[in-house]
């Protein structure tokens, strides 16, 4: 409870969360639901049925104009030219040192109209960073207040959403999106998520958010849907080994070190972007350190910041660590020198003064059955 509640922003669903008895916490300047019925229950609901998340705190930046594509090619790490209309792409805004200012999803609405969805904690920073680049024939707008965003995740997501939307979900592929209606109101449905499950992120108008949420809960509840908070979102994404900005990566960790070399395009046609020389060298020659997954073998949860040693030599710190509710193991991520990053490497983690053994394991920790 580090910030006075009065200074926190509220999403259009704030009143709904309160009605549901959610526990609200400060997060990235917002007052957000951390859990409703309980973190573990919510986590398991997403793995087995469905969960509904309010992620309206995420930012939406719109880039529009004939120069929009060229601009995005200059400021993002992935190859935006590969996107077709209605397609989305995981990417990053790299800095000159090869580290991300943020990780983002770029949506191509049309050849000259893109939406960039950014982390809540970075909206202002990203917006200023993008404005600082040379102009071109495009307009950059912060549209964050114009969208509410709910995320419906889990194996039952399609069955729950389909009766409520005009978008044909069966033909909507992973990392694709479509405009349509949700309960008679405009909505953009994107087959994306941050849980390791199938699911949808649904952009709606803020004044429609509460009605959309309530209908999804009404239709989904009999199928096992639960409202899910930031707590479950964090444990779900970690089981799926998805990085969290500010924890597993920041302005000091390169994209290649974070294991995100696959969103760094070296295609000559893409051209130059910040950090390209560093990222190119690391992609070709290997990074000096790597973000790896570990499993705790001893008793204890390895949490963010706990020191990690190999052969009693301090080599790094835990970036994310948790009890993994579906796997029923304690897992985490940490940066290790490349020489010590192989799967099977034995680690020792300092859990509040007590050494606890751990081992580097393959990731993702959890992968859903196809």
């Amino acid at each position: 409870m580090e910030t006075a509640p009065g200074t926190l922003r509220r999403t259009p669903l704030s009143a709904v969360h309160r009605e549901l008895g959610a526990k609200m916490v400060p997060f990235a300047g917002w007052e957000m639901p951390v859990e409703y019925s309980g973190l573990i229950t919510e986590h398991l609901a997403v793995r087995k049925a469905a969960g509904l998340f309010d992620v309206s705190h995420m930012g939406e930046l719109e880039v529009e104009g004939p120069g929009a594509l060229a601009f995005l090619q200059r400021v993002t790490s992935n190859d935006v030219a590969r996107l077709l209309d209605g397609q989305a792409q995981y990417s990053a805004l790299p800095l000159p040192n090869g580290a991300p200012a943020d990780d983002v999803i770029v949506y191509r609405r049309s050849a000259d109209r893109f939406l960039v969805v950014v982390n809540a904690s970075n909206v202002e920073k990203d917006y200023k960073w993008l404005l600082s680049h040379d102009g071109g024939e495009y307009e950059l707008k912060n549209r964050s207040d114009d969208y509410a965003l709910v995320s419906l995740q889990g194996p039952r997501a399609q069955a729950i959403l389909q009766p409520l939307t005009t978008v044909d979900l069966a033909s909507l592929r992973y990392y694709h999106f479509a405009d349509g209606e949700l309960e008679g109101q405009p909505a953009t449905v994107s087959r994306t998520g941050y849980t390791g499950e199938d699911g949808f992120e649904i952009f709606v108008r803020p004044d429609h958010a509460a009605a959309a949420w309530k209908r999804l809960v009404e239709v989904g509840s009999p199928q096992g849907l639960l409202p899910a908070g930031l707590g479950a979102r964090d444990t779900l994404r970690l089981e799926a080994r998805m990085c969290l900005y500010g924890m597993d990566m920041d302005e000091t960790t390169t994209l290649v070190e974070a294991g995100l070399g696959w969103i760094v395009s070296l295609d000559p046609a893409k051209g130059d972007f910040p950090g390209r020389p560093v990222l190119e060298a690391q992609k070709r020659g290997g990074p000096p350190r790597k973000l790896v997954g570990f499993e705790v073998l001893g008793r204890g949860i390895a949490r963010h910041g706990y020191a990690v040693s190999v052969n009693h030599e301090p080599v790094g710190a835990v970036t994310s660590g948790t009890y993994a509710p579906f796997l029923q193991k304690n897992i985490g991520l940490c940066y290790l020198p490349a020489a010590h990053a192989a799967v099977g490497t034995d680690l020792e983690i300092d859990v509040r003064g007590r050494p606890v053994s751990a081992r580097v394991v393959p990731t993702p920790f959890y992968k859903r059955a196809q």
Partner: protein
Amino acid sequence: MYPDDRRYTKEHEWVKVEGDRGRVGITDYAQNQLGDVVYLELPEVGRKLKPGETFGTVESVKAVSELFAPVAGEVVEVNSALVSNPEAINTDPHGQAWMIVVRLQDPKAAGSLMDAKAYQALVESAK
């Protein structure tokens, strides 16, 4: 909702005096703040505790929290069943999920802690 057969600390522990002994646990408010508990570490029998001294840790999926002795005394009993099934802290914090029993150094010392009404008021003000 807080039982009036015991006393409470501002760190959200309770102590129930039973003769010269005090049974200690954490409050419903504390378990609710923690969320799903997955680990509990408790002291050995025989450990002498000063008021406010750390006697263990309770860990939920998202947070770790120290346990503080509400009163002075020697640990005479430890709820080892709870260590194996710490989720009872979420379901029955004031009953089954007691943590330790101490032989009280001063059986009257608990009297200076908050009663149920005062604790309830503290919790309400934190909301």
